[in-house]
């Protein structure tokens, strides 16, 4: 099989081709490494590309031949967001602060990729410490959206989205704290799942907002994403917030029938400020599902107005605590000519962190500081209780809730960097989901008049990935049929 054929395959198709000896892991890895060499100069989707993956692929080929590795993704290359620890491999979080950090251990999700027999070909670009929605805050330069060179890929998992969209990886892992998987998936026209909080171990994921962070798969279609979830999910003794859950039944995903299922559309998801094209594409997608027998109902969700304040209070508070460990002492950036402890702290952090990270640290310190805790942090935890209540009520009526992923398609580069509040407001459709911890997937549902991809967001009940994956796959099939 030649390189061109290989990189056209989905991850499951590639895994099958390797098992059927139509190609090998080594061939597939080489095809991708070559593609990266040739094209990633344009996109900057990788921070680290691993030439040594080729040697690892050879070993995996032997294990596949000997029957030691039998998984559907055995031998398949994979790209990993650079905020997941990889033993012996640079893990930068897109930051000068960790520009030289080599973790001594693997994140649980990374270990599971290895156990499946996947080949990690590189670590992908991201907004610094996952703070951002454009992958422009990376210390290693911005990533470019394969759909338009002056467009951002979204963020913070912009590298993981762009590399899959540009066929520089068959599949990737991202992380999602307030939309960081779904929004770039939507901007880049791929499928991205934020699993239920607790479904995938966070162990080894460099923490941003600990109560919100979740690792998830980003792939070319729903089945790739579904299978990847099975690879990385499961309770982990090293993460006490992870939960025991069932694996997805992939046959049931394929045979899922939307007929008779109920879809709730929150009014606020389609309110003022929503791009007309985005609204139209999502509504067309909902129409397809309705025509296939799903029952659609609009309902009010006024609490959504408070989503962004609540989210930014919680995530910045957690972040300012999580990021205090970066002090120039144990790892990462450290200025050389310092002989005073306080000065070491201040210079390491002032020179190691970029502006967006500093802004959020200061915001977090503010909402937690004595005198303000009750007015802000505690108030946000109360709002969180009300948001959860609103979702519980919605899910007592509907099987899934559907809306857009973002108010717009991919933004122009540089547009939101100058105005952080504007960037934060762009997270309006995604942050609620992280606050309550439910799963949500971004599924491509057409293009704007500028030929930029649009994503539909399907939100499910806690640990009910089965249903949203069923919807996602059903929609994929319906939209293909509709085109023909």
């Amino acid at each position, binding site marked *: 099989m030649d390189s061109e054929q290989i990189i056209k395959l989905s991850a499951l198709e590639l895994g099958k081709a390797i098992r059927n000896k139509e190609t090998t892991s080594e061939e597939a890895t080489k095809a991708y490494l070559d593609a990266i060499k040739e094209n990633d100069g344009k996109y900057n989707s990788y921070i680290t590309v691993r030439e040594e993956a080729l040697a690892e692929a050879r070993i995996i080929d032997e294990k596949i031949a000997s029957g030691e590795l039998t998984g559907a993704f055995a031998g398949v290359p994979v790209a990993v967001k650079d905020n*997941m620890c990889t033993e012996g491999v640079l893990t930068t979080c897109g930051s000068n602060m960790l520009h030289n950090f080599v973790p001594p251990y693997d994140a649980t999700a990374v270990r599971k990729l290895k156990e499946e027999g996947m080949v990690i070909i590189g670590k992908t670009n991201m907004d610094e410490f996952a703070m951002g929605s454009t992958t422009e805050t990376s210390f290693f330069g911005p990533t470019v959206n394969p759909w338009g060179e002056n467009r951002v890929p979204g963020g913070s998992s912009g590298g993981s989205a762009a590399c899959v969209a540009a066929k520089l990886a068959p599949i990737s892992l991202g992380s999602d704290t307030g939309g960081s998987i779904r929004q770039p998936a939507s901007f880049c026209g791929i499928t991205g799942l934020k699993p239920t909080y607790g479904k995938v171990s966070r162990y080894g994921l460099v923490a941003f907002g600990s109560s919100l962070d979740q690792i998830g798969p980003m792939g070319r279609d729903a089945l790739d994403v579904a299978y990847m979830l099975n690879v990385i999910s499961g309770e982990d003794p090293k993460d006490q*917030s992870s939960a025991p859950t069932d694996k997805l039944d992939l046959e049931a995903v394929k045979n899922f029938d939307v007929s008779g299922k109920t879809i709730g559309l929150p009014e606020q998801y389609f309110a003022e400020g929503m791009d007309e094209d985005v609204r139209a594409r999502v509504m067309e997608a909902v129409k397809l599902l309705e025509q296939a027998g799903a029952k659609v109902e609009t309902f009010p969700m006024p609490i959504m107005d408070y989503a962004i304040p609540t989210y930014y209070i919680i995530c910045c508070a957690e972040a300012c605590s999580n990021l205090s460990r*970066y002090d120039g002492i144990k790892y990462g950036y450290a200025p050389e000519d310092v002989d005073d402890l306080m000065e070491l702290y201040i210079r390491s952090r002032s020179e190691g962190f970029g502006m967006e990270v500093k802004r959020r640290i200061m915001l977090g310190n503010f909402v937690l*500081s004595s005198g303000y805790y009750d007015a802000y*942090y505690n108030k946000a935890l109360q709002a969180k209780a009300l948001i959860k209540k609103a979702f519980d009520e919605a899910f007592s009526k509907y099987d899934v809730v559907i809306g857009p992923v973002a108010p717009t398609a991919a933004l122009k580069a540089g547009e939101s960097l100058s105005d952080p509040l504007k960037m934060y407001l762009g997270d309006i459709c995604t942050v609620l989901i992280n606050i309550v911890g439910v799963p949500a997937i971004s599924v491509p549902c057409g293009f704007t008049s500028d030929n930029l991809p649009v994503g539909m967001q399907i939100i499910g009940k806690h640990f009910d990935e089965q249903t949203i994956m069923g919807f996602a796959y059903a929609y994929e099939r319906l939209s293909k049929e509709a085109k023909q």
Partner: protein
Amino acid sequence: MRDYEMVIGLEVHCELSTESKIFCGCSTKFGGAPNTHVCEVCSGMPGTLPTLNKKVVEFAVKAGLALNCDITRNNKFDRKNYFYPDLPKAYQISQLYCPICRNGHVDIKTSQGEKSIGIHEIHMEEDAGKLVHDEVTGMTKVDFNRCGVPLLEIVSEPDFRSSEEVIAYLTKIRDTMQYLGVSDCKMQEGSMRADVNLSVRPRGQAEFGTRTEMKNIASFKAIERAIEYECERQIDLIEGGGEVVQETRRWDDEKEYTYAMRSKEDAQDYKYFPDPDLMPIVISEEYLESVKASLPELADAKRERYVSELGLTEYDADIITGNVTVVKVFETAGAKCGNYKDAANWILTDLLKLYKDEGVTPEDKEFDGDKLGTIIKMVNDGKINRKSGKKILTAVFEEDVDPEEYADRNGLAQVSDASAIEPAIRKVISENTKAVDEYKVGNTKNIQFLIGQSMRELRGKADPKTVKDILEKLLSEL
């Protein structure tokens, strides 16, 4: 000068004697080369997460029950955020909002009588690492071995009015922790540390004065001295027209004074908030009952039982129950020999003297109570005399020998066979005619001399009472 009284509150930290740390699987063993009991979790590597050790919760509940506390049913952990090189995550996982134990008390006895000291709360938290200043390089070395060792912080109410009360309370806390087996409370290894909050006020005044805090004082003696010093310092200050400044002071045990620590620029803002990485802990009624059922008999109950059931004097019972290691020796020895009063006597008159002479504590040097029981039994059965028993006790203390074997090897077995004793006594009688004659005419005191001579002849291996009986019999036959 007005009459002042001191007002003291204590924060006591006890390191729990679990095998592994509170949030990771590293060993809690004291000592060890720097950074050898460390992993990616307790060294604060990016991406790592804490995992709570079950035993810590169990130990905290045990301690709370023993110190008469209410146990909090819905527990959470909070992050206490501050920068320091001995705290690699830059936050300490602790409990601010929901401490596991509240509203307890400890009853103490001092020369002024009995008193109850309130316990405000007890919470679980992790210890920090160790910083060692290197004079050569001028740098500070960071050792993470102690990072994540589980701690209980026991916060008292400001109920103390003298250093004597403080020491009585600390002793009681230490004993209780040791009885429970939750902490060895060795001050010299830092597994028990006390912060002293002290203020003074004119006697009769209701409001508290401004307090200072003295941190991490390393022994009971030093605490006592530091309290006396700091109290006087504050009184002098006030009497001299000055004011006490609220600050943290350090006690210099060599120079015997306290000094203000380099003041932190501002009051610390710890920005506490619930730790999202750890799930809440809910204590059920069932769990509470099971822990209650597993509580061992504590000092007060033992003391009472020793007096009422075993017939010990209050004084003896006090001394024995004052040290959990001694209690173990006492109970084992008593069970072995079947005579608890004798066991108490041997411990109080002989064993504790051995410890004192060598300058070590019972915790430092293990002593097998079973062997003491054997020795007592040998003496009581007449197999050896008391003097030999003492000799064996010393040998057990020093080399942990087997008492019976040691007695055999050193020929300490007592001659109790009258046929072996009689010839020796006859010899003494025939060689001391003067003393015998005087005895016969009524100078009965001479019997002591004759016993002594006989014992000498028998090289000390006979029971003096048997010797006396035979001697009297033979003399009456003359």
